[in-house]
């Protein structure tokens, strides 16, 4: 029997994986993907909880999250392209002009 806890655990693991990825990866695209993993793990949580709680709010929320994620993706990729044009790299180690 798969309970809500299983879903929650799974999404937590996914979330953790995403977080870990953000912390460890250097490629901007990969980092972005990791963030997407995080967001989607949240979506999973919402849906599971929506089912558990018994109302639709969670599912509605997921739609918003997905929309927003799409918008973010558009903006984020655009920014990355702009950066790539100037620096020929999207390695986060090259984000090093602004510091201290």
């Amino acid at each position: 029997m798969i309970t809500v806890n299983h879903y929650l655990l799974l999404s937590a693991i996914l979330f953790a994986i995403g977080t870990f990825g953000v912390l460890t990866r250097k490629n901007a695209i990969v980092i972005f993907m990791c963030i997407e993993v995080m967001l989607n793990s949240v979506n999973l949580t919402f849906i599971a909880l929506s089912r558990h709680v018994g109302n639709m709010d969670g599912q509605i929320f997921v739609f918003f999250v997905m929309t927003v994620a799409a918008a973010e993706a558009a903006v984020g990729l655009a920014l990355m392209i702009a950066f790539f044009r100037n620096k020929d790299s999207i390695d986060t180690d090259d984000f090093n002009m602004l510091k201290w």
Partner: protein
Amino acid sequence: MENLVQEAIQNVNFQAIMPSLVLCVFGMVILMVSVFSKRGSTTHVAWLSIVALVVTGFVALTGWNNPQAGFAGSVLFDNFATFFSMICIIAAALTILMSDDYLKREGYPVSEYYSLILFTTAGAMWMASGTDLMTIFLGLEVLSVSLYVLAGFFRNQVRSNEAGLKYFFLGAFSTGFLLYGVALLYGVTGTTKLEGIAAYVRANPESAMNTMFIAGGALLLIGFLFKVAAAPFHMWTPDVYQGAPTPITAFMSAGPKAAAFAALMRVSIVGLDGLQSELTSMFWILAVLTMTVGNFIALSQKDLKRMLAYSSISHAGYAMVGLVAWNEIGHSAILFYMLVYTFMNMGAFAVLVLIGKKGENNLTLEGIAGLGYKKPVLGIVLTIFLFSLMGLPPTAGFTAKFYIFAGAIEAGYIWLAVLGVLNSAVSLYYYLRVMVQMYFKDPEEDFAWVSINPPVAISIVISVVGVLYLGIFPNSLMNLAKLAGF
């Protein structure tokens, strides 16, 4: 099904989102106008956005003492929202006033810039008026996404790109935490409405206080703390502020920050009322940490924008003191503080906008040596803003700080107040250093490139008047802040 639609339509109250609607419409109009405009001519668009903001301002003011709820309780445009909306509108207007010439100087005269600012403002107003985590989240994202673009707006400038990217990644990252927090809260309480969450906690005081609820609350707030640049979620601030176009930096430090505070306040006070004791102790530590980190690091900064970024971090720390106090005075104080901060910080940035050369590599401490002699008026106004940032009478910075610390002391947080004022003492040093350069050093350059154009002048005048008026006669707005507070 019929019933549902009926109910929904009844619940819909466009009055409640009218200000943001107006802004969005104007934003889209501007996009359209820009399509038909000559390339590179943006002045009319800028003035059009000013018109938009003025109209919005009037619309928003109708909400004063006339709270409008709508969308099944997801939006509440009350005094609180009005006050914050006005702050955001003022910030946006000041930003636009200082932008036109700046964009031309830097070679990006693009109309989308203005519509993005309008969208950001709209998002900020949603954040301030949202009473459902869903609307607040939407506002936050509208605001963020627009800001990501604005921060990276100078697409051929690596610095700007980097600022945009860093902001984007960290912003999205923090959104993940925020959402996870929302999800957890939803799981416990079954609702995303702030009132609903609070009601659930009131109904089940024992069972609601579980790990999931607390963790959810914490994660949620962290999302906003990221936006207000509270330590340790402040690290994006200096980089982004330094890299972003200067007017945008100014805007970010005022409007979106105020919106984030609005959300932070509404969420903690309305939604997470049950966690008061936990949250105040958390805010206590974070406030001290934030101001200390901001002030200490600012001491050794040479770049003015970066220095003001750290200063902005520390000011977020001061404002959080009002949250620690968790009393009426503290809450209204935050409102007042954000308003004052808008004036003084935007004013300071406006001066920087004026004195920067193309590329803004001269916005360093050495770069403004002798400014007070070559451009005395600019020198004086910058001095006034700096004194205000220090919190010295008779400027608004003082009254605002007084208000904040009054809240803390009334609530019995003496040590917090002491740490706060000691922190301001530390901060004196780096603000004074600017004045040292402006007045105590001989000019090395003639600042001939500085031309004071009317829009920027207007923004500076508004800021100066705001800073001095609120410093000397703060009565009226303090009272408004009191009425707008919780």
